[in-house]
């Protein structure tokens, strides 16, 4: 067993922790090497107190640049996890051939768009497959008070939301289930408007009154802001066939009658076996239908996002390096301001290493304080941004610190603490007598 195997066998936490320590190790080693055997901390404290405002400015600058990097990484991951979570109940989507991304946005994230419809023949074909457990038509385009009104089947609504938070699933054409963030209570009535947003026509469906009979729990997806109604009701409200043969009992949901199936922009499919999902995807990727896994499309988008993140991370690192360079230049100036005190120490017989340790310890204090504050700043920014994104998109984005950003900070601290050796070293070559007289 070689060492790579050994590494792979370690639990992820151990790998991350060890990577963190390895990145921090140069800083720790330098710290021990520089500080060992002396007690420079009192004088480091004196230097910190000597220029409180300049020091605070340095710390804030470092914190801002570290926060940028931390925030960027945490935010990108939050978005990735949030969008994936919002899509995870959607196994397979069938739609008329076109853009998978447009369909993904429309069906999963409820972004309104005009898409061609699939007919009853495709729907019938899907339902004939013995492995299909849910095949739900979907209907969108209406809204109430800004909330999209989505027609679908009780099965799919139940699958999407899990057990309802309150009330029951819609069972007749004029019943509705409200998403967790819809400001409607059980028993409330509403009339949907035709269309979504500013162009919605309030009067188009004025004879269609729905009653809310249940509320979904939070799903962390745009469906939290949606009102779910039987798909038959949407068809009927728009003057289309209701999908059922004559003499329908009025019980909503499948089976539908092919002859009276008005069409659907997408069929949301769930098979009872994983392999069956793949089989269905191949079967329905053809001239008149396309089939895709939202998760796979999303993964492709995330890859692009990942590339963008890498580009942005490079920018963030460049910013950090620039800020650090600025801080070190500032430290050189500060070291010059404290040159008289350092010359005094050396005139009193302090070893060069001691004076060096004082300057380096001073720089290290600013850098470490800035880095720690930066983690807080980045985390805070992520909390704020995540809240805004969740508010605007209903995709639940949670702010969380994870190892990648801690690795970044550890690497930054190590690099800058090594760089801080430069201003510390620069003070040693100075003329003691001249500095004493200054």
């Amino acid at each position, binding site marked *: 067993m070689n060492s790579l195997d050994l590494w792979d066998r370690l639990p992820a936490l151990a790998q991350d922790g060890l990577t963190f320590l390895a990145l921090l190790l140069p800083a720790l080693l330098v710290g021990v090497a520089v500080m060992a055997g*002396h*007690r*420079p901390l*009192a*004088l480091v*404290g*004196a230097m910190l*107190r*000597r220029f409180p405002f300049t020091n605070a400015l340095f710390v804030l600058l470092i914190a801002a640049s570290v926060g940028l990097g931390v925030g960027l990484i945490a935010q990108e991951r939050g978005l990735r996890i949030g969008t994936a979570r919002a899509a995870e109940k959607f196994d397979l989507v069938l739609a008329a051939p076109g853009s998978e991304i447009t369909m993904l946005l429309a069906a999963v994230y409820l972004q309104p768009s005009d898409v061609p419809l699939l007919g009853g023949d495709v729907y019938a074909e899907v339902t004939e497959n013995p492995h299909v457990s849910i095949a739900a038509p979907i209907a969108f385009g209406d809204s109430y008070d800004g909330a999209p009104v989505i027609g679908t089947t009780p099965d799919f609504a139940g699958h999407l939301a899990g057990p309802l938070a309150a009330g029951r699933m819609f069972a007749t054409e004029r019943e509705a289930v409200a998403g967790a963030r819809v400001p409607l209570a059980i028993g409330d009535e509403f009339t949907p408007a035709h269309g979504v947003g500013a162009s919605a026509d309030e009067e188009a469906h004025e004879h269609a009154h729905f009653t809310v009979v249940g509320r979904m729990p939070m799903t962390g997806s745009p469906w939290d802001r949606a009102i779910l109604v039987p798909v038959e009701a949407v068809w009927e409200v728009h003057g289309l066939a209701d999908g059922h043969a004559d003499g329908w009992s009025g019980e909503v949901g499948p089976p539908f009658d092919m002859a009276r199936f008005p069409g659907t922009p997408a069929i949301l499919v769930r098979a009872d076996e994983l392999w069956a999902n793949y089989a269905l995807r191949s079967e329905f990727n053809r001239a008149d239908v396309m089939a895709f896994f939202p998760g796979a499309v999303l993964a492709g988008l995330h890859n692009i996002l990942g590339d963008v993140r890498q580009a942005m991370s490079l920018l963030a690192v460049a910013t950090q390096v620039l800020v650090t360079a600025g801080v070190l230049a500032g430290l050189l100036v500060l070291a010059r301001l404290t040159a*008289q*005190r350092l010359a*005094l*120490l*050396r*005139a*009193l*017989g*302090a*070893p*060069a290493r*001691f004076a060096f340790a004082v300057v380096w310890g001073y720089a290290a204090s600013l850098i470490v304080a800035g880095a720690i504050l930066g983690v807080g700043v980045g985390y805070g920014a992520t909390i704020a941004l995540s809240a805004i994104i969740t508010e605007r998109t209903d995709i639940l984005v949670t702010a969380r610190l994870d190892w990648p950003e801690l690795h970044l900070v550890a690497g930054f601290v190590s690099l800058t603490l090594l760089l801080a050796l430069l201003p510390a070293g620069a003070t040693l070559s100075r*003329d*003691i*007598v001249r500095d*004493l*007289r200054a």
Partner: protein
Amino acid sequence: MGLALTITDLVVEASGGRHLLSVPQLDVPAGCHLGISGPSGAGKSTFLHALAGLARRTSGHVLWDGCDILALRQGARARFRRDHMGFVFQDPLLFEEISALANAGVAAAFAPRRRRAAVTLAAGEALTTLGVPTRPARPAATHSGGERQRIALARALATDPPILLADEPTASLDRATADTLADALLGAARAAGRTLVVVSHDPALIARMDRVLTLRNGEITE
């Protein structure tokens, strides 16, 4: 016990090459109290800096009990100062943010572990002898000019050095305070038999020295 000083052919140059100081020959026995006087700009501080191995562009020999400090490398010179010298600079040069005691005992921060406690203890005693209040502790910046000069002297005494170099230790003090400080300086020097070199304009202090030299234009006259 103090160290004997022997200087031969000492020359200190300015960066331009001009002679700031030249001392062809000087012998000071161990335990001697040597006073240096002379007009401003004569090279008195430069002389003390050369004795401590601080000056750059030096030639010749400054032997302390046979050890030529000018022949030592920087690290060894620092060690020599640390182990054998107390220096009172012309300007008190304190760390303004830390206490009088921390200033007087600053050498404890870089002294060998076993000597740290002794340095801090001696610093406290020196401050008490010199009449500098240490309780409650407050930043050195809040101490008066005279107190600051005494803190600087306490700092020089804290390491119990066999050589004491003092540059204008009583400048800008009133007569009574200057006399107290001079008493403390000479008392400390005499008690341990230290070799003392004092630069001063103060005739009262100079008068108490065993031997007095005058520096003029970088040249020494008896």
